[in-house]
């Protein structure tokens, strides 16, 4: 008897799943989004932006699954979406190589694929949407040059060395200050994207150098850490702090700018809204570009409130 009840329950569960997975019969289109890791604040913001954009349309049903930074889980997630025959697949791959094959399989099965932020190692996708870290770094560099009046000593706190975004945010920044030979990067260290490392690096820099005019962090938490270090050494006074990412929310960089902790940050857009827009275009049968580069925006004291 017990077994019978359990069996019935299991069957009912499977049936419910099957019903749930079907494409809504009333013309609703299902967009499946495979997120590589929802635990990162920036990716959390991406999820929220996608959800908000999808909510605007009655005929769009957005489903988000989180691979928790696990390649094999993400492969399984995409396989599930293929089985479910979603109308559009959006994927932000954990790593390019391990996810390429399954994304190609989805594309070959006739599912339009939007690749968000990180690329795959193939051109079997419909549209790639991403921001350009080098352009963002350049915007930060130009701002630094302007804020320093073309002359000053800079501490640069790197994101994880060896990661592409850190290298690009550095290269872009150097391009931004290239015309100003009197801007010196006097100290640079790898802060691994962490607030704690940013603070420690700035503490060392403050000991080592009597004059520091600007601290540039490859993300907001590290720039914030540098600010804390400078404040504790009573030297934050006329130092300038620049970060990147400009996330919304109480813990985000935009709030830090609004609070006067950072002088400026540059938005690294998540592309969530753009992805839904492109997905709708694909479903409407319109032609879409193969690649979309998202624009950054400078967040400073004049406009921080809009980005919070």
């Amino acid at each position, binding site marked *: 008897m017990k077994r019978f009840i359990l069996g019935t329950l299991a069957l009912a569960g499977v049936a419910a799943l099957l019903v749930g997975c079907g494409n809504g019969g009333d013309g609703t289109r299902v967009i499946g989004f495979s997120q590589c890791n929802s635990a990162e604040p920036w990716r*959390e913001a991406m999820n929220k932006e996608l959800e908000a954009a999808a909510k605007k349309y009655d005929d769009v049903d957005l489903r988000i699954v989180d691979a928790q930074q696990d390649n094999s889980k993400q492969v399984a997630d995409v396989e599930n979406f293929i089985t479910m025959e979603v109308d559009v697949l959006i994927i932000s791959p954990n790593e390019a190589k391990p996810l390429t094959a399954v994304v190609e399989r989805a594309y070959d099965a006739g599912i339009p694929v939007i690749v968000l932020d990180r690329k795959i190692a193939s051109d079997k996708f419909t549209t790639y949407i991403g921001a350009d870290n080098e352009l963002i770094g350049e915007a930060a560099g130009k701002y630094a040059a302007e804020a320093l009046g073309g002359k000053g000593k800079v501490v640069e706190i790197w994101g994880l060395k060896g990661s592409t975004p850190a290298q690009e945010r550095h290269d872009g920044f150097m391009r931004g200050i290239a015309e100003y030979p009197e801007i010196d990067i006097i100290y640079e260290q790898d802060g691994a994207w962490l607030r*704690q490392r940013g603070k420690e690096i700035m503490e060392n820099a403050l*000991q080592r150098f009597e004059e520091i005019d600007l601290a540039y962090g490859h993300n907001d938490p590290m720039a914030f*850490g540098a600010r804390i270090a400078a404040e504790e050494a009573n030297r934050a006074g006329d130092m300038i702090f620049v970060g990147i990412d400009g996330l919304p929310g109480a813990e985000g960089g935009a709030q830090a700018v609004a609070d006067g902790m950072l002088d400026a940050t540059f938005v690294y857009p998540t592309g969530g809204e753009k992805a839904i827009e492109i997905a709708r275009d694909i479903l409407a049968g319109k032609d879409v570009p193969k690649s979309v580069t998202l624009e950054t925006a400078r967040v400073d004291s004049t406009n921080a409130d809009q980005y919070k």
Partner: protein
Amino acid sequence: MNKQLSVFFAENEWVKPALGFLGLFVLCIVFSPVSSKGTLIFLKFDNLSNVLRQVSEIGIISVGMTLVILTGGIDLSVGSVLGLSATATAFGLMDWRLGFFGAIGVALALGAGAGFVNGAITSAGKIQSFIVTLAMMTGARGFALFLSDANSRNIGFGENAAPESFKIFTESFFGVPFPVYIFLAVAVVAAIVLRKTRFGRHIFAVGGNQTAARLSGVNVALTRTVAFTVAGFLSGLAGVVHAAQLYQGNPNDGVGFELDAIAAVVVGGASLMGGKGSMEGTIAGVLIIGVLSNILGLHGVEKDFQLMLKGAIIVAAVLMQERRWSFRNKGA
């Protein structure tokens, strides 16, 4: 003479790491960068107090780790427990409105609770502590993410925010930051407990020879459980300090701290087999690693080189500990 010296080294395990630290300190003075005014930057009071503050979290954890390692165990969960405690501190102050003592109390209780569970399962279930604390490392991280909904929480002050009293963790007294006093107090108390109390002798007895300890009336299970509970409590304390330093509780913080703590304890002369080591040695180990990071940081040495050098130092330190001094055998 040589024989006396080697007996002295064998009986006072903390001497070698302490000498190692002094040697490194002298090297740091010699190779210190010089400021424009001609002063040695390494020796500046501010810099030295920075070093002490930077090592205080790992230092507090290492004290607990030493107790566990002396009993022949290991605690891999300290980093996750620190993350959990830092998260609880921030949420306790900002969201749950527990006030100064409430928030810190919850954070410490979570740490001690995790440590107690580690110790109780290790003792009662007769499972290797490596496995038990590996499970706790995963579980505590998960619990921190659950409590915080995977968000970090910034600590702000003022109306409807954290009480001003919490700022004590970032203040300095006589030029020395408060966390340094916490670390020193914890270390001194632990050193005295290890040397002077019955509990201290039991710790060595359990790690030296468990069977002999039991036969001579030592409550092995209780001693172990207390050691793990203290280690958990101290990880919790380090978590409070961590949250205060960064004005933030982040459930993802503290990754890899267990390895830093184990490295400090081992550099300090303790044996992972248990029964051999000292609190003084561990403190020397913590300082060696802290001073090394500082001097490399002041010179702007790249991280790749820093990591290689640290690896080499750990191996060299352990070789120094394990090797009998060669002149001993030759002399006789």
